[in-house]
């Protein structure tokens, strides 16, 4: 008997709680439950035996927390604990039930909330999976972070051929602690190729019922359900739902359809399993109706392609000088700001392209995807021509992304589609091949069909291929526009695929491009376009799309349209009071006014004169006011940011007149290894930026070696280190020691700051300067660079 045989049954009866049963058998406070596999195997075996006696068809091993992190003080290795647990289960189950290797979360939060990396999580799981090689299948249960669960599923797929069941734990609001939605969990896990998925723990069957119902809407796989025996009483730790009530509720849940694997979590005992068996013995399995369109998601947000959705195109260095600079200088914050502004403008999905010949695209892509997912909720589209870049990003992406792209060339089909399949993504199919872009709609349709057929052959649902019929420049090939639209329309109707299109190329070389672009967008939408790839900060384009959604009866009762435009006529144009000075604008944090005033002053004042006689003195005064407690910190920052806007205006002006841009010196900033609280460092960065220093921000949790390497590479004279906790002051000391003994950094000075630091301690660990606050870091920079 194997798992696939069991799946042919109407239902599969699982077991109930292990922890509850161990407590009943006298688990002592602080005793690690997994050690009982070795110290008291008879207790563990008796639990398996009791469940099997009630008809349990798959028993779970007593290995929920048997990972290297949680077992570090247990006195046993993971291998010892897991293999003993599997032996205990096997001894009772032989010939009667299958044995599932139970794997729970590691017990630490992953980046960005915590410090555990994807690779670390993967290694913990891999060790458990190898140790459990004698189990029949693998159960991942009680996960709250989708990315951690993805690490587990990949570790299982890559290190064993066993079937995988993946279950997450949701709260009453329909989300896990990490904010994961049911739709995102279902889409992502099904994409990764698990055999069944579902939900366990945290709530009783009644509270879980709406969550299970939502699951059945989002997945075609068998659904797994293991509720608690109701809610626990915090003092007695007993649960409030008795076996018969539990079984009645489960009966209702099973009637949603698709629910096939049923059992119990905390508080449930063999009595609950017996009651549950009575229920399933009387029922027949049926599949719930799947009511979703092809969808992509982040961990928190699913985007169903049931109507046109905007893909933001701005994260791409092509033709953007400032963006290229950001990539070369590792200025991830610039990229994140681009992302946030596109999301605020209404982007549903963001395209991410960081290809630049001078950088390691693979490493940069991984960094940018992680950083983006730590601040925005929208799904991402991974855009690269290199399969190795795509794969690295697909591994660590949290959710179900779009891959941009595959095309009709054999080389592309055979390299990209298997990745799309393995990681369960959607993919953009470009209608071009070895011979270039076909001139006719028929030619492009044929390539689309070839891509879809190949996708189908390796098990990708054709619905998850989004075809790009390619926009050609209308000023060069005027007949091309009709071919693009005709191909788009055929792909939609005949292949049933969604389509995407980069829109703005259409107008290249023409005046008033905006006009051509938004008319073309409207035509394409009318021909069936679902995914326009555009700049969402372009009001005309977004306006065309919003109007289209009204006219196409998508935006019901024009709700979104009215919400967007109802107030727009009331917006007043900016008037600058004639009496406002630049100095006052900076002090008051009035960005728009300061920008206009700087421009006005530049007409009759030298740029550096403005910097030295207005901007810097204004900043100094604001800084002094803050020190004296006459200003709140956010007011200081607002003034600094306003000065920054003025500096930008001046830089542009200097660039026009060919004067060299002014940087007063380059400074490394880093929060030391082990420390993940970086708000203090970021405040320092804002101020230094605004005083005209160039900041190389290495981020948080930074290895000493990276700081030293960067300092050597970029010939740095000042390093700023931040630490927030007493436990990470050691890393600060180590970093300073490493800088001191590195040849070539003799002239490099170090300033330090952070809540727990004192001037004495800073001196003791060998720092050159102690900065009490962000303002003092500017004073220090002035001393160092003169």
């Amino acid at each position: 008997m194997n798992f696939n045989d069991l799946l042919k049954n109407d239902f599969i009866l699982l077991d109930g709680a292990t922890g509850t049963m161990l407590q009943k058998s006298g688990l002592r406070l602080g005793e690690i439950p997994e050690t009982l596999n070795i110290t008291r195997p008879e207790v563990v075996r008796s639990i398996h035996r009791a469940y099997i006696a009630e008809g349990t068809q798959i028993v779970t091993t007593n290995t929920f927390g048997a990972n290297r992190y949680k077992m570090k003080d247990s006195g046993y290795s993971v291998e010892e604990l897991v293999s003993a647990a599997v032996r205990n289960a096997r001894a009772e189950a032989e010939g009667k039930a299958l044995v599932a290797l139970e794997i729970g979360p590691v017990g630490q939060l992953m980046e960005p909330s915590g410090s555990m990396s994807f690779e670390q999580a993967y290694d913990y799981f891999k060790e458990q999976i190898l140790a459990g090689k004698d189990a029949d299948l693998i159960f991942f249960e009680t996960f709250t972070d989708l990315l951690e669960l993805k690490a587990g599923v990949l570790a299982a797929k890559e290190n064993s051929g066993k079937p995988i069941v993946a279950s997450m734990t949701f709260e009453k609001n329909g989300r896990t602690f990490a904010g994961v939605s049911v739709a995102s969990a279902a889409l992502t896990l099904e994409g990764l190729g698990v055999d069944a998925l579902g939900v366990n723990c945290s709530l009783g069957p009644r509270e879980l019922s709406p969550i299970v119902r939502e699951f059945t809407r989002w997945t075609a796989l068998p659904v797994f359900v293991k509720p608690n025996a109701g809610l626990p009483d915090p003092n007695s730790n007993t649960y409030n739902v008795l076996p018969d009530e539990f079984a009645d509720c489960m009966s209702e849940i099973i009637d949603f359809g698709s629910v096939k694997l049923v059992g119990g979590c905390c508080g449930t005992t063999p009595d609950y399993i017996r009651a549950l068996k009575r229920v399933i013995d009387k029922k027949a399995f049926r599949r719930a109706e799947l009511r979703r369109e092809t969808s992509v998601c982040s961990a928190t947000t699913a985007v169903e392609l049931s109507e046109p959705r905007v893909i933001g195109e701005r994260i791409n260095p092509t033709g953007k000088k400032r963006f290229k600079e950001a990539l070369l200088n590792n200025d991830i914050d610039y990229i994140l700001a681009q992302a946030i502004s596109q999301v605020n403008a209404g982007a549903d999905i963001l395209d991410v392209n960081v290809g630049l010949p001078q950088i390691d695209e693979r490493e940069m892509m991984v960094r940018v995807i992680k950083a983006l997912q730590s601040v925005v909720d929208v799904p991402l589209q991974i855009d690269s021509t290199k399969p190795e870049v795509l794969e690295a990003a697909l591994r660590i992406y949290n959710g179900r992304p779009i891959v941009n792209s595959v095309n009709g060339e054999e080389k592309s089909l055979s390299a990209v589609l298997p990745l799309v399949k393995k990681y369960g993504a959607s993919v953009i199919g470009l209608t071009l091949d070895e011979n270039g872009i076909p001139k006719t709609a028929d030619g492009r349709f044929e390539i689309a069909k070839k891509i879809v057929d190949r996708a189908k052959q390796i098990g990708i649902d054709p619905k998850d291929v989004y075809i790009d019929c390619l926009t050609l420049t209308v000023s060069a090939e005027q007949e091309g526009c009709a071919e693009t639209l005709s191909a788009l329309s055929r792909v939609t109707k005949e292949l049933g695929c969604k389509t995407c299109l980069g829109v703005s190329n259409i107008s290249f070389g023409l005046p008033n491009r905006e006009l051509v672009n938004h008319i073309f967008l409207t035509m394409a939408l009318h021909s069936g376009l679902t995914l326009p790839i555009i700049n969402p900060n372009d009001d005309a384009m977004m306006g065309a799309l919003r109007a289209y959604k009204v006219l196409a009866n998508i935006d019901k009762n024009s709700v979104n349209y009215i919400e967007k435009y109802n107030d727009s006529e009331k917006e007043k144009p900016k008037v600058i009071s004639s009496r406002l000075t630049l100095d006052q604008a900076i002090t008051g944090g009035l960005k728009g006014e300061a920008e206009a005033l700087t421009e006005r002053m530049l007409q009759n004042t030298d740029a550096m004169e403005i910097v030295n006689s207005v901007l810097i003195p204004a900043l100094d005064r604001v800084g002094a006011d803050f020190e004296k407690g006459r200003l709140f910190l956010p007011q200081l920052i607002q003034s600094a940011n306003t000065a920054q806007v003025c500096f930008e205006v001046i830089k542009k002006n200097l660039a026009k007149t060919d004067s060299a841009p002014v940087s007063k010196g380059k400074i490394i900033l880093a929060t030391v290894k082990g420390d993940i609280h970086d708000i203090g460092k970021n405040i320092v960065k804002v101020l230094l930026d605004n005083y005209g220093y160039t900041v190389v921000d290495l981020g948080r949790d930074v290895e000493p070696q990276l700081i030293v390497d960067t300092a050597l590479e970029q010939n740095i004279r000042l390093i700023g280190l931040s630490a927030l906790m007493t436990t990470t002051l050691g890393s600060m000391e180590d970093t300073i020691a490493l800088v001191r003994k590195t040849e070539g950094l003799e002239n490099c000075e170090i300033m330090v700051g952070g809540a727990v630091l004192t001037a004495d301690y800073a001196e003791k660990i060998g720092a050159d300067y102690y900065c009490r606050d962000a303002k003092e870091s500017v004073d220090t920079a002035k001393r160092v660079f003169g």
Partner: protein
Amino acid sequence: MVEIKINREEALRYLGGSGLEPDEKMLSLLDSCEKELLGAASPMFLYKRIDINESGLILGEDVGNHLEGCKLAYVMCATLGSAVDKIIRAAQVSDMARAVVLDSTASAAIESLCDEVEAQISRENECSFLTWRFSPGYGDYPLSLQEKFLALLDAPRKIGLCSSDSFLLTPAKSVTAILGVSEKPLEKKRRGCAVCALSKTCKFRKAGTRCEF
């Protein structure tokens, strides 16, 4: 889920400007940050009554002094959830002034959540007296006990509160603490700057004021 209140004066204290009246612009920033924070927060907490001697939580002198005369204690933890970390991160990229206000507002919110938990414990122990909350990192009480606190409360599983390798609580806006239960009234003198680990570097003291610890 509990409701949280935000003590605006406390949030302002974290933002410097001691005793300063916020102007209109500052007030509207505070309003909007409080609203965003309340939308993102999922306040959760756990507590448990323990026997101090069996707990394995007594390390160093300071906690021993703090719990003097108590046999029983409560361990507690509370968090605002990981979505709060996310909005603060996002604001740091797009608007740092907003980020520092969100951060201070969140710090004030986790404090008032802890006050609420303490009040609840207090109601359950009407005949006894409670010490104030003592947390790993106070005095010589080691931060490395975070893992033990969390394990005792089953916090990673029950409310998603974990500790990193360097014993930082994650999500960031979280607290663990121990409160002693005494049958006799407790001396009130123990709280204040003298026992605070941050007294040497405290920005309030430098500015000539105090926090309300």
